[in-house]
């Protein structure tokens, strides 16, 4: 399909705006950033509206041989589409959340965020292996600066940890990519997704990709950078980190690990299950004892992401679709939770849970929103998380019932730590005078949280809007994985007709009586 290069335009708008913001004054930079992200949101919605469900697998394809060794190849399928829509949806909210909270070095801040947006859209839209890698890894620079410049007290440690952890993961992937391109002679992701790699080679390649995506996701035990980064990052940084950057790991699994290496994925599936269930239980327990709100939500992110990996490596449609929905839902809900924390952090400048209490009395509207997102995070039916978690667990149940059983406890623990958090912050006595004096939500904060509520409910009540674009791609992936799919331990076997056995038992019973 050749037409208007809408994807390139979506990449160009924030990139140009980033440069413009860098040279603008603080006020102008805010406006530039907001306008640019809103334009991208409009373009993203246009993309969604024009995406043909049931049309060709790759749409809005662009190709230009600009570089030696790789090309400017863009194009999206349904999976990329929904993630791009999520990114462009969250960006204006991030800019809005930083409107007053960021006071120093505003132009640079806005430029970093806009640059980040270009890279995020690019990662999901890239159809060339090396273009993907460049955009994937380039995200480290703006995020390093966002955490390091505008972060909290311990920001420098957190920024180093974030950078070096993710860098070490991705360089191994680069070597694997070079090897792949050397073997196959192509850098096109759609072609490689259909390429059958020799099974022996798949194992090491899978591990190299896994190193990168597991860190990004993050999976236990390489998740430790996330709580640090989240706690130290400014509110909008946390939103984008939880909302989109973590999804790059999941996207990597679904775009690369599974279709490239189906056999190796099946071989390593028990490893992924093991790490994931540890993550679900362990990080949920850790979340339970946190005294820092952001850290608590960060650990809950790790637990939710573990549900995603479980669903992905369940090797069936329910699991794959479910994990896509969890990713989207988590993007909305945990983003919203970080915003909620941001709201009270802006007022009291502390994330200590104990410094709050009883704020439902003086901030009833806020308490309502916070309650809604708490419930959404727990996975209450009619919210987005419920759909995703239900499907994912159903998927993993088909593959391994024990894994599903243990992972299911994560839902209960999730309810425990989220409700416990909510009780300590919103209910109880107003033991701190300054917390009791906080004013309720401002119009700006309403404006930020309301779209998230609507999106969360929409996804929870009518998930079809989000599942429809990905259905064909998931089915395609499912078909590719079919040959390698590990046999589940909960096979449905036809039973014997009940009536007959009952009758014969009766007969024999009668016979023995006689």
């Amino acid at each position, binding site marked *: 399909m050749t037409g208007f290069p809408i994807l390139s335009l979506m990449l160009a708008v924030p990139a140009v705006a980033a440069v413009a913001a860098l040279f603008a004054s603080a006020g102008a930079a805010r406006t530039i950033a907001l306008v640019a992200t809103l334009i991208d949101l409009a373009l993203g919605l246009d993309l969604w509206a024009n995406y043909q469900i049931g049309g060709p697998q790759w749409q809005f394809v662009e190709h230009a041989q600009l*570089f030696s060794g790789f090309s400017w190849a863009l194009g999206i399928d349904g999976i990329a589409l929904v993630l791009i829509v999520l990114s462009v949806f969250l960006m204006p909210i991030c800019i809005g959340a930083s409107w007053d909270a960021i006071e120093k070095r505003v132009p640079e801040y806005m430029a970093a965020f806009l640059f980040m947006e270009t890279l995020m859209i690019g990662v999901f839209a890239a159809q060339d292996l090396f273009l993907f890698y460049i955009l994937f890894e*380039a995200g480290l620079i703006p995020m*390093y*600066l966002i955490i390091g410049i505008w972060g909290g007290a311990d*920001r420098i440690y957190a920024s180093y940890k974030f950078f*070096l952890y993710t*860098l070490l993961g991705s*360089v*191994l992937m680069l070597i694997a990519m070079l090897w792949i391109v050397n073997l196959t002679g192509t850098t096109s992701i759609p072609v490689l997704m259909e390429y059958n790699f020799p099974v022996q080679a798949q194992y090491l390649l899978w591990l190299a990709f896994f190193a990168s995506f597991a860190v990004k996701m993050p999976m236990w035990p390489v998740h430790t950078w996330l709580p640090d980064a989240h706690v130290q990052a400014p509110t909008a940084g946390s939103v984008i980190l939880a909302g989109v950057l973590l999804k790059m790991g999941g996207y990597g699994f679904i775009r690369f690990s599974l279709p490239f290496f189906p056999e190796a994925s099946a071989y390593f599936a028990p490893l992924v299950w093991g790490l994931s269930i540890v993550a679900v239980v362990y990080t949920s327990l850790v979340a339970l004892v946190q005294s820092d709100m952001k850290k608590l939500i960060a650990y809950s992110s790790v637990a939710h992401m573990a549900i995603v990996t479980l669903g992905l490596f369940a090797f069936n449609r329910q699991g794959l679709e479910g994990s896509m929905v969890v990713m989207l839902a988590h993007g909305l809900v945990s983003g919203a939770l970080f915003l909620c924390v941001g709201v009270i952090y802006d007022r009291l400048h502390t994330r200590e849970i104990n410094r709050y209490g009883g704020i439902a009395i003086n901030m009833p509207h806020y308490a309502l929103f916070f309650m809604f997102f708490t419930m959404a995070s727990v996975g209450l039916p009619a919210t987005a998380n419920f759909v995703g978690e239900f499907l994912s667990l159903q998927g993993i149940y088909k593959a391994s019932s024990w894994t599903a059983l243990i992972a299911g406890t994560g839902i209960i623990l999730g309810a425990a730590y989220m409700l416990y958090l909510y009780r300590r912050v919103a209910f109880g006595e107003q033991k701190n005078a300054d917390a009791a004096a906080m004013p309720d939500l401002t119009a700006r904060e309403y404006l930020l949280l309301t779209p998230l509520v609507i999106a969360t409910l929409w996804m929870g009540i009518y998930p079809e809007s989000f599942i429809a674009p990905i259905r064909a791609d998931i089915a395609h992936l499912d078909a590719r994985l079919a040959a390698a799919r590990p046999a589940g331990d909960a096979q449905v076997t036809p039973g014997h007709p009940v009536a007959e056995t009952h009758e014969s038992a009766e007969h024999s019973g009668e016979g023995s009586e006689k």
Partner: protein
Amino acid sequence: MNWASSLRLVAAEEFLSVAGLVLLLVCAWAGDKSARLVTWLAVAALAVAGVLVAPALFGGVFGAEASAFYGQYAADSFSSFAKLLIYGAAGVSLLVAPGFFERQGGYRAEYPVLALFAALGMGLMVSATDMLTLYVGLEMNSLAAYVLAAMSRSDDRSPEAGLKYFVLGSLASGILLFGISLTYGFAGSTSFDAIHTALVGKMSTGSLFGLVFILVGLSFKISAVPFHMWTPDVYEGAPTPVTTFFATAPKVAALALTMRVTLFAFGMQAAAWQQIIVAISLLSIVVGALGAIGQGNIKRLMAYSSINNVGFMLIGLAAATPGGAASMLVYLSIYVVMSIGGFVAILSLRDAEGNSVEKIADLAGLSRSKPGLAFVLAMVMFSLAGIPPLFGFWGKFVVFQSAVAAGLVPLATVGIAASVIGAFYYLKVVKVLYFDEPADKVVGSVDGVHAVLLYGSAIVISPIGYLFTGWLGGLAQSAAAALFHAA
């Protein structure tokens, strides 16, 4: 083969020699007053020499067509690729010199002339196809370089740097000469062509020794570990424009020379030198990265960074393929631009009294007082670390690509994992520039020439640089092909 065609092939060297001698007369008569004029004339001479060598690169000249003086000298596309880089880098280090030396109390007219002779020597090095041409070129460059290092007589560190450089450089030359004599003894000739054909099959112990000594001598010149110790001291001690020069032009010359010696003269013995190259490459990457972490002086940091980068370039050499050689040339080109950007930025760091600021701690919070300068310096650091989307990534990328294509996956894996260690100290500089509270030590502005060079190199290492990859890659391939054609 006749004299006329030979003389025509070495036109650039002839022109530079005459220009150097004329300029020497100018500064003898007019004294230091003429220093600025001589500088500009020297830059013009380098530009003319660049124009003279360029056709060989764009025409893809190689083989007998490019050979002069009975196989002692090759004006092929490979040598002109390297020469263009050398002349460019030498020109830049001339352009930044007057401002610096005038602040230091007196710019001397000898500086541009010496740089010109050094460039001439480097041109000889990269064109050498005979051990003796090689040695003459190397010494011509080195003698000029020793003097340049000691140029700043008001600063104690500068003569010390010059002396250290001289002593260790002479030692290296001696070792190299010993290797050459052994090789001559076993191959029966000093010509690369003859060595190439003589050394086939199993290598005798003597010729192996010759090879090892030659490699040791060359490792000194490219400052590869374990022969790197002089680098931090010389980089720190030499006046900054001279450091700019050392970090760029001689690096190109010595690496190009190493490539010709290994890939062509010892081209049939790749297995013998490959393992040596692999070892020194990994050592350079690791030692360069670890050594840099503790450095408090930005010039020393750049010295370790250059050791680290040479290690990455040697990965391309270890591949021993035309692709590997081409990737080295691409990396070298990008590295030269990054170094120029970095050193021009360092040259622009001055305190209230006009003295150079070299301590990294004094750069704290530079992003607030001098946002443009800090931005470029941060870009250079990320680029040297090889983080996309900056252009430095492309250098690493092509080198690792060629290594993987040559089947050196373990080397590539270890090398790239070690690059993460390197990323740490580059990040540290960015942290000081952006995260720390301002020290407000750095004042003064970036003046005309510096600004052009600074922002020019920033544009090249920005993602815009990727648009040049096709063009650069094509030229590098044609240059590398010349190296292998003869073989």
